């Protein structure tokens, strides 16, 4: 499948778009089995320097196992991992140039904040004066200098999170692994911390690999997202690409909301394709070419916000390309936008979101209205798998 509309700009900030860039972390056909269960199934992945790479997936997708293999807590059943060109296969966790921030933070409860942060440096044999300075610097960066002597149980959740971050950053690892870094924070704190993380990442220039199940978190943080399902990476792409050009229906449905119509290819041009969909009740024209056999069954994905909705009587409208007729069966008013559930004549239900541009409620769509849905050829994506 070829995606012709991916932005073409190539810069040093997006090394994955150039074919000859050297990856910083190279995961080569890594498989991990626990007994009969295959947690990670022949995953290959390149991560570049200074990236903030997100592994996104549901529970049991294998994302955490992959992270633990990068940290060295699990050994791959087969395949290997290279970091900065060095094979990590026989390097124990305590010798890897990798640090991890745990989901539970894993702060040592019997040590003060200072001692927690200093722990890694002391193991490295850094002279005491330098340890003191580096600990002070990093605590300053996460704005915790005033709490240096506290024990972890005397801190709030957000403060603990920052101690954990400081502790994993102070050794200046080549690679920082973050396991659900914002998982235990409340909504407001999450948003603040997201930007904080991005700022720190840019400031220190450390490569981050973040594991998360939260698609919004992945979208805001990541330079690239690797979507995982059943131990396999199903798509690796930039956030907007994953959203606008999902490579298959799993990705499309996992990230955001989507309407899926199945149909048969009736006209396959070089740069466009027309699909007859009984699900939708008409023809769908898509303005990108796909590689498929004639009469192949495919799915078309359309995001709810890309549909236009208008109140109109059906007999005045006779086009059947990229348009569907239906009746509103449910409305959810969300303030800035409204979500409509529309039952098409074909019997399928479609979700439409519209911004609430006008304040007046006179012409607002409501239950049982007959509506026409239309969309542009470039708003939908064909999924062959």
């Amino acid at each position, binding site marked *: 499948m070829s995606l012709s509309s991916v932005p073409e700009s190539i810069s040093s900030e997006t090394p994955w778009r150039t074919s000859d860039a050297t990856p910083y972390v190279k995961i080569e056909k890594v498989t991990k089995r626990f007994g009969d269960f295959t947690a990670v199934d022949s995953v290959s992945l390149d991560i570049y320097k200074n990236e903030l790479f997100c592994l996104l997936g549901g529970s049991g997708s294998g994302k955490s196992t992959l992270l633990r293999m990068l*940290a*060295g*807590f699990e050994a791959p059943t087969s395949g290997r991992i290279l970091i900065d060109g060095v094979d990590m296969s026989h390097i*124990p*966790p*305590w*010798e890897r140039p*990798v*640090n*991890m921030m*745990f*989901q*539970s*933070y*894993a*702060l*040592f*409860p*019997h040590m003060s904040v200072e001692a927690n942060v200093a*722990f*890694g440096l002391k*193991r*490295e044999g850094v002279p005491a004066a330098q340890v003191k300075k580096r600990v002070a610097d990093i605590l300053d960066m996460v704005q915790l200098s005033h709490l240096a002597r506290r*024990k*972890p*149980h*005397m801190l709030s*959740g957000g403060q*603990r999170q920052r101690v954990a971050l400081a*502790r*994993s950053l102070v*050794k200046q690892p080549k690679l920082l692994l973050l396991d659900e870094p914002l998982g*235990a924070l409340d909504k407001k704190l999450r948003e603040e911390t997201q930007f904080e993380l991005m700022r720190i990442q840019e400031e220190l220039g450390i490569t981050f690999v973040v594991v998360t199940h939260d698609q919004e978190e992945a979208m805001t943080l990541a330079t690239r997202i690797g979507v995982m399902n059943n131990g396999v990476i199903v798509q690796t792409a930039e956030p907007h690409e994953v959203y606008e050009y999902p490579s298959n229906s799993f990705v499309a449905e996992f990230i955001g909301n989507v309407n899926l119509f199945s149909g048969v290819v009736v006209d396959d041009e070089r740069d466009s394709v027309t699909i007859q969909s009984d699900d939708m009740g008409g023809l769908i024209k898509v303005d990108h070419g796909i590689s498929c056999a004639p009469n192949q069954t495919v799915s078309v994905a359309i995001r709810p916000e890309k549909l236009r909705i208008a109140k109109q009587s059906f007999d005045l409208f006779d086009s059947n390309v990229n348009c569907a007729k239906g009746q509103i069966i449910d409305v959810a008013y969300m303030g800035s936008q409204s979500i409509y559930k529309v039952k098409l004549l074909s019997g399928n239900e479609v979700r439409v979101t519209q911004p609430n541009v006008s304040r007046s409620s006179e012409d607002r769509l409501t239950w049982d209205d007959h509506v026409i849905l239309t969309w542009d050829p470039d708003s939908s994506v064909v999924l062959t798998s």
Partner: protein
Amino acid sequence: MSSTTKGQSKFLLASAGAGFLFLYAPIIALIIYSFNASKLVTVWGGWSFKWYVALFQNEQIMNAAWVSLKIAFISATLAAVLGTMAGFVLSRMGLFKGKTLLAGWVTAPLVMPEVITGLSLLLLFVAMESLFGWPAGRGMTTIIIAHTTFCLAYVAVVVQSRLASLDVTLEEAAMDLGAKPSSLFFLITLPLISPAIVSGWLLSFTLSLDDLVIASFVSGPGNSTLPMVIFSKVRLGVTPEVNALATLMIVAVTVAVLAAVFIMRRQNKIEIPRHSCWR
């Protein structure tokens, strides 16, 4: 508590009262009778400290107490070290050959009748002596070995359950930050399980101090422990001196138990917030 007591039924109060009476009445009686001035144990003759004085002048009892304390101290310490190692292996080494056997062996002394433990150890010591001459005869050494054997089971169980509740990611975090297995153990694991080891030690100490059956099997002449002396004295008739001795032991044991409880409490205080942030 006191505000809700009013609403509780009389039956519950009576039950609680019966429980307390059943548990503590004999002890209270013992303590009161240790201050009895009369020479006859069962007849009250007024208050007196004389049995305590007599107790401290009784060389046989004092010697036995000293022997018992030495044995309890050494075997509790050995049991703490070995039991910690056993508990650590059982909870952190994953699956290995012979794990079930080790786990079974660790818990066996908890359920094994003491007579059998004592007898089997006696047979072992006799066999060892005839095979390679050690331990020569039976005495303090054999009692210490025997006590260590059954006490380490208790320590192992306490340590193992502490390790099971300990967040494994703490150890992973330490490794991740560059701690080799040895420094991981001494800097992270050991401090975190130390309350369990201390309470295991205290438990072992009291168990060893208390043991009569096993010690009787494996002790030799001139190395009678305190319970053995008391038991032999009681067979000739209870003297008020024994009451005084028992009172002192109750005080000692109470202090040890309170210390263990205090240590555990303090540990929990540190831990509760850590888990509440978990979700």
